[in-house]
């Protein structure tokens, strides 16, 4: 990404900015340390501020988050003047008040995933003054995240999401202890990390991780505020709290892989995870403060298109649930050994797409092979089987678009195009099939060969391979 404009000079300014920001951070930390010494009296009891901004780089994570005095509250339980001012609008709420704010400031909350859901969760939890905020994520910020993952700024593209999110939270509220867990949550590290927090927020983007977090929360007896969003819909509930079910009570067996839509395939309107994430922050605050009725044993279903929210009653925790049932034999050792990716047949990431392998080698060509076909002016027809709205984003010209779902009924159209091409070139054209990643193109070629198009071949890796190996300027999406 060139980004436009004054290359060298821009770099110099950015370097200078980076240096100045680091200096400012250092100064801020020293100021907070001195202030905390003034507040607490003789040389910092625990030094809350000095410890702040810890990075947990290891898998076992040695930073403890539990059982510390709440931020801002003096040991005698009174609120210092600046905290009264800062949280005054909370304190004015009769149902919330000083007690609510005190509980909040003593709570530790873990947000798993710093993406579309996690962004508003972390921002609101930091702003509202929780005691300790942990953020787990192993990914880096990408440009195509920014339309919905509003915690991240352009300057952080390429940086770890956890660092970006933690910096944003600290900028909003320097009195909150923000802990960075810069790795993907897995059975090997989940127990250690989750154990340190009172409340867990599932803001992840994939099925195996959802099963894993739920199992982990049951084992460690933590309430789980779970949100999900895709396309124009969102879902929200609180698992394993006040008699509510766990994820396995609701979904004992995982859905078939073909039913697992992902944001990176199906798309998502940015504000939809934003709405669900805000509600997750709200539920986490309610659980932390015991104010109101959390969404236990109920699920909120949000349909953005029709502007409808429906709240439905769920079954309670199942007595014979294999994980949270009374007779469950599921142990921490079982958990650490459990293969969630195998169980769900899907990867613990939204980005790695499960790829299929349906065709013999001689029915496939690489994107480079296709490039030389074009360069040598070999007569052929390029058939793009992506959905029409994908084709409208970008395409290789000239190509014929027939979405895979309509291919069978539109075979006559294909036939006509091939005949035209044959008449124009005086030779039998070959048929090359293309899609986004090289999965649907295989399904299409399989179908075409069954229907008598014996020469049909697909391009391995689809447009992504084309963009990577042939035309670096081709827009990827």
């Amino acid at each position, binding site marked *: 990404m060139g980004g436009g404009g004054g290359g060298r000079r821009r770099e110099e300014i950015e370097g200078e900015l980076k240096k100045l920001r680091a200096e400012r951070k250092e100064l801020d930390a020293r100021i907070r340390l001195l202030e905390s010494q003034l507040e607490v009296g003789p040389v910092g009891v625990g030094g809350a501020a000095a410890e702040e901004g810890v990075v947990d780089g290891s898998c076992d994570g040695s930073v403890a988050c539990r059982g510390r005095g709440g931020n801002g509250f003096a040991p005698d339980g009174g609120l210092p003047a600046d905290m009264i001012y800062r949280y005054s609008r909370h304190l004015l709420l009769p149902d919330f008040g000083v007690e609510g704010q005190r509980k909040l400031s003593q709570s530790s909350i873990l947000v798993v*995933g710093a*993406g*579309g*859901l*996690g962004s508003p969760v972390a921002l609101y939890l930091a702003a509202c003054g929780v005691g300790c905020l942990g953020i787990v994520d192993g990914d880096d910020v990408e440009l195509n995240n920014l339309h919905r993952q509003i915690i991240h700024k352009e300057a952080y593209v390429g940086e770890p999401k956890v660092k970006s999110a933690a910096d944003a939270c600290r900028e909003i509220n320097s009195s909150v202890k923000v802990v960075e867990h810069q790795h993907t949550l897995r059975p090997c590290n989940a127990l250690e990390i989750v154990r340190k927090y009172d409340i867990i927020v599932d*803001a*992840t*983007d*994939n*099925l195996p991780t*959802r099963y894993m977090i739920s199992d982990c929360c049951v084992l460690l007896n933590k309430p789980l505020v779970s*949100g*999900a*969003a*895709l*396309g124009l*819909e*969102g*879902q929200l509930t609180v698992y394993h709290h006040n008699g509510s079910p766990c994820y396995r009570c*609701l*979904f*004992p*067996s*995982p*859905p*078939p892989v*073909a*039913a*697992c*839509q*992902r*944001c990176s395939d*199906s798309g*998502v309107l940015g504000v939809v*995870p934003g709405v669900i994430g805000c509600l997750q922050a709200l539920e986490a605050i309610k659980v932390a403060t015991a104010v109101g009725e959390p969404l236990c044993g109920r*699920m909120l*279903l949000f*349909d953005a298109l*029709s502007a409808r929210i*429906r*709240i*439905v*009653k*769920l*079954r309670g925790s199942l007595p014979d649930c294999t994980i949270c049932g009374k007779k469950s034999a599921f142990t921490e050792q079982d958990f650490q050994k459990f293969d969630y990716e195998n169980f769900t047949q899907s990867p613990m990431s*939204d980005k790695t797409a499960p790829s299929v392998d349906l065709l013999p080698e001689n029915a496939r060509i690489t994107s480079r092979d296709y490039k030389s076909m074009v360069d040598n002016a070999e007569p052929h027809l390029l058939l793009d089987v992506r959905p029409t709205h994908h084709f409208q984003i970008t395409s290789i010209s000239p190509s014929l678009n027939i979405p895979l*779902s309509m291919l069978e009924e539109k075979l006559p159209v294909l036939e006509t195009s091939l005949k035209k091409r044959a008449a124009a070139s005086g030779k039998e054209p070959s048929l090359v099939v293309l899609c986004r990643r090289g999965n649907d193109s295989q399904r299409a070629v399989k179908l075409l060969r069954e229907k008598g198009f014996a020469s049909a071949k697909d391009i391995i890796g689809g447009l992504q391979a084309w963009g990577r190996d042939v035309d670096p300027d081709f827009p990827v999406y």
Partner: protein
Amino acid sequence: MHLTLEFGGGLELLLENSTKVHKVEVPPKDGEEKVTMKGVLSWAKTNLIKERPEMFVKGDSVRPGVLVLINDCDWEICGGLDAVLEEKDVVVFISTLHGG
């Protein structure tokens, strides 16, 4: 019997024009007086689902990962497949989402 059947969470993609809400008339099965959820499922599979029925049903129930709600209540609480429906009931089939 007049029922409203709604599909969400991506299940609507299996229906004509991806329409989410369907006001329908579901007759009892031959030789029966009542309409049960089992009957509604097989009726919907035959009359509404246009493609990939395996994405909707498995055996004689819904496929894993689909929540069924009768008048905004989990069907597990209402009797599951044997739940008996009443005039103007609203049945929602919703696929669980995993994205974020």
